[in-house]
């Protein structure tokens, strides 16, 4: 009886682990959602796919590489990610990035009042999130060689 219970528990645990490895709850996304809803009156998509990029206000955060990747990701003629919402949150001291990505289908949310940190959003490096069905599917820092890795993952070469 005990053996059966143990096997069953193990199976349930493994199944649960597999389910959550792709889609995770993220405290970071909760903070981003709170910021977007309070300051920009929007929320992260509940059921859709989305890319969320948070540009850091810190050292070397916006390299040409990052901009190139974002412009490819947001290219309107690229149909692969047409179903994704693309959001970029950017501190006002780094807002020059917007000029470089004017013609993309990315939506920019500029943090004019230096409010990001109030919502617990303070990344030392740019952060990249992919959401599926409204939950976190993938995240990584967009920094140095990581930019190449992430770009490759989504089929872009920088």
């Amino acid at each position: 009886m005990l053996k059966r219970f143990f096997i069953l528990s193990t199976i349930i645990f493994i199944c649960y682990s597999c389910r959550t490895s792709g889609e995770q709850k993220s405290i970071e996304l909760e903070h981003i959602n709170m910021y977007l809803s309070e300051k920009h009156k929007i929320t992260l998509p509940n059921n859709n796919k989305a890319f969320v990029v948070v540009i850091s206000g810190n050292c070397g955060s916006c390299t040409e590489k990052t901009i190139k990747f974002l412009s490819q990701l947001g290219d309107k003629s690229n149909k692969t990610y047409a179903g994704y919402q693309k959001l970029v949150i950017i501190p006002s001291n780094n807002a020059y990035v917007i000029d470089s990505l004017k013609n993309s289908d990315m939506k920019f949310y500029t943090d004019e009042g230096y409010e990001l940190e109030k919502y617990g959003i303070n990344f030392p490096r740019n952060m990249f999130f992919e959401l599926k069905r409204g939950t976190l599917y993938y995240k990584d820092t967009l920094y140095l060689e990581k930019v190449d890795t992430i770009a490759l993952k989504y089929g872009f070469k920088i």
Partner: protein
Amino acid sequence: MIRVANLYLIIFIALLLCACHKADKNIFIINSKVADDADDYKLKIDSVSIPLKEGFDTLYYTYTTYAQQNQDFLIGYNAKKACLDIINLTKAKCVKHLFLNKTALFTQKLDRQDLDKSKSITDITVIGNDSILINDSNNRLLLVDTNLNLIKAFDLNAIAKNNNLPGRVISYSSNFRMLEHDNKLLLNQIYPQYSWEKKVSVFSALDMKNEKLTELPLSFSDYLYEITGKGGYLVNVGTSEYQKNGLLTYNYMYESNIYQFKDKDSTLTIYGGTMSGGSNYVTPIEYKGGDDLKKWDIHNVENTQFFNVMYDKFRNVYYRFSLKNIDYKNGKYFNSILDKPLVLMIFNEKFEVIKEITLPLYIYAPNTWFINKQGLYISSANKKNKFYAPDKIKFHIYKITR
């Protein structure tokens, strides 16, 4: 039976109180003393608002000041334009830009956002009457005249190598400012690794004639060695260009003590500089490879940081600013470094406290302050200042009189 239990309870509470008391007391921190005549000092606050000419900035993080022909000037590094801006403080007038990228001196692109310090001007100081010393990315020092003509260049990496330094020498306008001292240029000596077993010098004096470096017998404080360097972002030495002749006054960002080195007999005196509220030393933070750096940011918010100590030769007092520790969590929100109260402490020459003032929040820009005969200037260009004017550079001037 109940009596015995009560006795145990009393002993337990007493031990607990004792432990709490001990945890808060740091044997490395010296308490400050209030000056007997503190009440005799009066503080007056003035302000100056300088209309900006095109291309000038409202705030300079890397800057220096100098006096010439009875007039006071500010030189600030303007990263957006890659130039040095000269402002006449006496006449409240923007004077000129010195464009660094228009000279052959700067072939490497400077970071226009001033976020990447390896492509930025990290420090500026005025040497003699008319020479400006520019620290370019902590790689080289450029001694130039007021038209940016090169007088002499110093390769900081080559200097470290030629002097058999295990590390490098650097300076930042925000903490360890390079300064002329005893006919030499003081720089911050850093190492690739610290053992925390043996004390090493963190001050190096550069003889600008023969490029020889001499170590000063000044290291990080006992407290940092006690916590084996685990001070997070706050492991910095603070020096100021405003020094009393014959003395070198410095401090550390991670503790309230103030240190004074006397050249004449090479003696070091440690003074207490504790604030009456808030923490007076950094709490250690563990860092393992792979840790989220956000941990350090939170630590930075939750610890007091002490800025450099400046001597006011016109009023014979010392000033020191600090950002008081606060909780990171603020209800459902979070506090940032911008939410930390800025405290100004004014000391007499014996480092007794004359004034301790918590300045209003969201007014002042931490780290943009300087002294001239008018008083202590503090930039009022805080990022969250509601009265921020993009067309003016504004300072409040604190004047202490007796």
